[in-house]
């Protein structure tokens, strides 16, 4: 399931509900699908209170505004989910991605995957966030003390996506 929204979400409540739902949206077998899930993997992306990765180049961050391309965003996320389900035997997938203005410590994105065992759950979760970062049309704008700046794409994100082109499970 894909959700694109401005509202903050409760990470614990979402993950709890995902585990309890037990693959209801993704199971192809009937009966008690929930009991067939052996592993749930999750990734939570949060707003940092600074930008830069070392103390020397750290700049305080007051807020982050995410812009997106309504329509294309949902389409791309649905494709990314479909690709994950094609590569791994998944019982359920949840991707929540926010847009609009958010402050440090708020969640931006949540990816949850459910499978029979840990391997497919963990791998597909990383695949989803890696692919999403280079294929879903979102743009971050950082508010810092010296003004607003559009975030530049990082080569390491492209490399993380490219890795999945080579290594099919």
């Amino acid at each position, binding site marked *: 399931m894909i959700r694109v929204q401005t509202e903050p979400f409760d990470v614990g409540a979402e993950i709890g509900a995902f585990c309890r739902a037990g693959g209801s949206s993704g199971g192809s077998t009937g009966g008690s699908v929930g009991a067939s899930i052996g592993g749930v993997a999750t990734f939570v992306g949060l707003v940092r209170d600074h930008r830069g990765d070392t103390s020397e180049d750290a700049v305080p961050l007051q807020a982050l505004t995410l812009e997106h391309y309504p329509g294309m965003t949902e389409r791309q996320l649905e494709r990314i989910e479909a690709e994950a389900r094609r590569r791994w035997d998944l019982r359920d997938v949840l991707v929540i991605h926010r847009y609009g203005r958010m402050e440090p410590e708020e969640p931006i994105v949540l990816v949850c995957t459910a499978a029979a065992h840990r391997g497919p759950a963990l791998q597909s979760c990383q695949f989803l966030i890696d692919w999403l970062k280079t294929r*879903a049309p*979102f743009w971050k704008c950082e508010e810092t003390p010296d003004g607003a700046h559009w975030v530049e*794409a990082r080569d390491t994100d492209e490399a993380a996506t490219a890795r999945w082109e080579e290594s099919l499970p």
Partner: protein
Amino acid sequence: MKVLYFAWLRDRVGTGEETIERPADVATVGDLMAWLAGRSEGHARAFADPALVRCAVDQDFAGLDAALDGAAEVAFFPPVTGG
């Protein structure tokens, strides 16, 4: 045809959306970028470095060579930075 701009391309062009009459000799995404760049100073700044610009035709990523025949909506934006 509808043309959309996102992130700093919108800032530079000065609008997020405009409707254009595509000239007959503007056949590809690359042609359209070159043509749009001549519309105003803001457009020129937005398309000054085409290597920094990404495109979608009818909400699918498209390269410079992509044909515009039948396209209703073309969007220009920087490389994505979500997640």
